[in-house]
């Protein structure tokens, strides 16, 4: 009796799975049609149920489309330490990169970052959801590229251009005098990590009219500096972020070491909130402005 019931249940399950697959195939065909439309038709595709799985694409998506078109964002976007949009996402469904969170929403467009949960992205793509993987930004140029790419994918190219133009205006206002004699700056994270060349933060420091000592120290991307090297570099401006709510960790001890305190007596310390440049967003302009203010304090230029 029980076995019979089990078998019945089992076959029902198989049937349901089969139905699901059928649905998937149909969705896939629909998605193909949509992509074809994007490529061929002059009318832009306008996804109406966008799911984003990465903090950076979350924020660009929010800036480009109306909330009604956002089906889901990644959970990090609600954390004020990392996100500029933490206050704007109430009511939006948050995901943790799991397929089971995204699939029931039946998104008609999925955006993910290079580091997003790969299995989920592949599964969604295989099930026929149009998927776009956006590389993380290593420079302000990459920010422009990413905003344009997403603007195109969402059918919001004009809005994307407006965002870029606003950012470029702020960057131009913050840019320092060209030529040599730039003040030096170093970004110092807990644990002694810093940003070198070929990094977004390094590019931001350059755009603010400063020389990035992380790059001078031979670091490409992000890397760790010994405290002795840090002291020997003796930057004019030391960039940190202590705004975050901190539970105790050894990682912070480098920021409180007496040697760093002694160094600080001779440097200007600037706080740049991590959320401003953890992602390549138009908000990066605010980080450039903060650093440009610090530059003016060092060089004595007239402030704006």
């Amino acid at each position, binding site marked *: 009796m029980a076995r019979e019931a089990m078998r019945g249940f089992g076959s029902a399950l198989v049937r349901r799975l089969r139905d699901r697959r059928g649905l998937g195939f149909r969705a896939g065909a629909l998605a193909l049609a949509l992509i074809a439309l994007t490529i061929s038709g002059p009318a832009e595709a306008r996804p109406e149920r966008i799911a984003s799985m990465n903090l950076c694409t979350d924020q660009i998506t929010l800036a480009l489309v109306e909330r009604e078109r956002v089906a889901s964002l990644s959970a990090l976007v609600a954390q004020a330490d990392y996100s500029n949009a933490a206050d704007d996402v109430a009511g939006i469904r948050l995901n943790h990169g799991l397929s089971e969170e995204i699939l029931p929403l039946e998104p008609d467009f999925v955006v993910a970052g290079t580091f997003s949960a790969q299995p989920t992205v592949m599964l969604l793509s295989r099930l026929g959801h149009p998927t776009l993987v956006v590389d993380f930004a290593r420079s302000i140029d990459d920010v422009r590229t990413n905003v344009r790419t997403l603007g195109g994918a969402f059918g919001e190219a004009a809005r994307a251009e407006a965002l870029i133009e606003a950012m470029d205006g702020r960057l131009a206002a913050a840019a320092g005098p060209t030529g040599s004699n730039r003040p030096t700056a170093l970004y110092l994270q807990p*644990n002694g990590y810093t940003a070198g060349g070929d990094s977004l933060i390094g590019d931001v420091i350059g755009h603010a009219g400063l020389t990035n000592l992380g790059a001078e120290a031979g670091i490409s991307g992000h890397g760790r500096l010994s405290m002795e090297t840090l002291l020997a570099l003796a930057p004019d401006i030391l960039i940190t972020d202590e705004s975050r709510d901190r*539970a105790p960790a050894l990682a912070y001890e480098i920021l409180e070491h007496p*040697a760093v305190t002694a160094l600080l007596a001779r440097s200007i310390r600037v706080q740049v909130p991590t959320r401003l440049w953890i992602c390549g967003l138009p908000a990066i302009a605010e980080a450039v402005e903060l650093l440009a203010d610090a530059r003016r304090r060092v060089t004595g230029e007239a402030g704006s």
Partner: protein
Amino acid sequence: MKEAGLSRPLALPMIGVDRAWRLPLALATLLALLLAGSLFAGPVAVGPRELLGALLGRNLSVAEIIVWELRVPRTLLAAMIGASLGLAGAVLQGLLRNPLAEPGLIGVSASAALGAVIAFYTGFAAAFPLGLPLGGMVGAGLAVALLMILAGRQGSTLTLILAGVAVNSFAGALTALALNLSPNPYAAAEIIFWMMGSLADRSFQHLGVAAALTIPGWLLLISVARSLDALSLGEDAATSLGFDLQAVRWRAVLGTALAVGAAVSVSGVIGFVGLVVPHLLRPLVGYQPARLLPVSALGGAVLLVATDIFVRMLAPGPELKIGVVTALIGAPFFLILLLRLRATSP
């Protein structure tokens, strides 16, 4: 034989006294050289003239900050912690009459790390300067007391090692758990500091809080020296010679807890120093526990300062944890010791 062993330190002829001082003097000289050499080791090159200027000067040059705020405290901390580990190893081996007793091997250091981790990540250490070493001391003290109960009196080498393995893994697991429960994203990655030990970027503050507990710990450990000599004849003999073994045990437990607890709370677990050093030096002091203690302290300091210089010279890239190097030296040594023990006792 018994009589000779006991009376020798008292009835030593003059020439013998000189010889007795030879080893400590040699170790002290070596330590002084290493301490000086340690000030030169680091990723930023500081020449002898610059170093001297930095040591004497007060002009707040970069070299001066590097030397005074980084290298001097680090060097002194390495010497102090090495001495604590060497001394505690020698005392534990004498007390338990067991050649494999060592703070790291029998779980005392791991328990100290647990205590320090709890004190640090709950914010207790930040609220109260001595909170960190006190946390380490409580952890170490509980472990030594537990081991004395499990394997203290007539326990075999095997019992001690097995009890130590249990305490070690239990404390390690709880440390990992405590760090995983910490809300800070960095905390979980810091397990490696507590398990493998490091002296990188330590400051005078660390040296100060550790010294406040370490020095009373040393005094307690040194105070049991003569009782260890008597204990080498057996418990009954020691009691009949008038030593209060209960008091001796408690002084050793408290001394180990203070010295090892303070060491681990600022440097993490640095293993094998307390095993290797007493073993290398024991034949040189005529197998006398009392004479072994001071030279083990000196030898521990020599070994750890030298290892710390080595770690800093392995540039570039992230610094290797010092406990990795002491384990690389110590683990093969431990195996050789085990094989020898098996050969002598069937």
